[in-house]
């Protein structure tokens, strides 16, 4: 039995999703039923659920993707990032653990380094490592935008007086799971 679905099928699904197809979840669930072991489908499902405000199910799909393919680095990164934006920093760090094993200079390793500094409120190092990651990342522009948003916020609180409570505008929601980061990536 084939574990991974055909690239064409995957491409078709993504095209349907980008064209605002209303029954995207039905199509996706049908594909997952046919290829339950394909981590890319679970990752995709998790990304879509996260973007439409169904976080509990999103997390379980993202976890499933990483469970099926522990070396699927982008899924692992996004699972950790999802946990971070859910306020579950300890879980995020645990998820990201294996990313440190990526080669020095890999953008995901830099991003994880930067976000780890962010959790510790080490803002200078956060900006340094995130910028390092952005410079190294040429394959995933959406992720660069998300990291740039975080840099901007960090720079802002460093520059101005501490903002009052409630100023956090939830711009983490802009850390969208944009689908273009995903295309053509097969888990290794």
């Amino acid at each position, binding site marked *: 039995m084939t574990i991974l679905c055909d690239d064409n099928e995957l491409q078709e699904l993504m095209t349907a999703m980008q064209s605002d197809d209303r029954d995207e979840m039905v199509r996706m669930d049908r594909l997952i039923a046919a290829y339950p072991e394909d981590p890319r489908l679970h990752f995709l499902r998790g990304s879509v659920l996260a973007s439409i405000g169904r976080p*509990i199910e999103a997390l379980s799909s993202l976890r499933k993707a990483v469970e099926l393919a522990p070396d699927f680095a982008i899924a692992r990164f996004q699972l950790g990032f999802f946990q*971070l934006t*859910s306020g579950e920093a300890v879980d995020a760090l645990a998820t990201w653990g294996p990313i440190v094993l990526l080669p020095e200079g890999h953008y995901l390793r830099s991003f994880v380094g930067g976000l780890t500094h962010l959790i510790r409120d080490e*803002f200078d190092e956060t900006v340094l490592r995130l910028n390092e990651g952005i410079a190294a990342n040429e394959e995933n522009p959406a992720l660069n935008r998300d990291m740039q948003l975080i840099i901007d916020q960090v720079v802002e609180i460093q520059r101005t007086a*501490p903002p009052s*409570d409630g100023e*956090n505008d*939830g711009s983490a*929601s802009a850390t969208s799971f944009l689908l273009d980061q995903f295309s053509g990536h097969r888990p290794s």
Partner: protein
Amino acid sequence: MRPRDPSGLELVVDPVRAEASLWRRLRFEDDLRSREALFNRYIVLARAVAARLFRRRMTRRIDRGDFDQFAFEGLLHAIDRYDPLRGVPFSAFARRRIVGNIADGIATMSEVDAQLGHRHRIEQERLRSLAKSGDDPLAALSELAVGLALGLMLDGTGLIERADTADAQPSAYDSLAWRETQAMLASEVGKLPENEAIVVRQHYDQGLSFAQVAQLMGLSRGRVSQLHRAALDRLRKRLRTRRRWP
């Protein structure tokens, strides 16, 4: 007063996801802390609904505290029944249940209950929890007095961190010694075992009855009463070691 610096984590946390993670932990991972965190998050809503209904009440025989109690109960029911996967915001779901519970509670409240008032009932509960039997009666009485005094000090210490109480002003008439002891007590509550701390926080700070604390924690009312007593015993011992205490 200088506002607190934002933490790095606060910059990236999405409130909707953070709440979803509390529901997930509560529903699928049996996490006790999440239940309390959700209750604390929505107690403001319960109080607001109670205040609104209290202003519109048709009877003068029932006090505001009773409205709050029914509102808390409604909130607890709502937390138990809410399905976070259905996509309905919890506040909308809970509001209806809180309103319904207050209306039902007030309608069925007996004349005697109404006369006693919730304050009296809460004090009775505390007394029963603290009173020991079989000991030397004088020693028991003295312990009881200290226990009740501790309770009095704990009332309204603001043990639960709230953004809007960062600058709570003590009354000018509170003696320095009272305020110091109260502050010490509040810091000791933070060091209590988890279950005991929850009982103290919810009972004294939020004004929940033991039955409601029991529902919140998924324990029996008797167990909550025991935890209450254990917590006050522990606090008394700790305060004795920190300073001279009767």
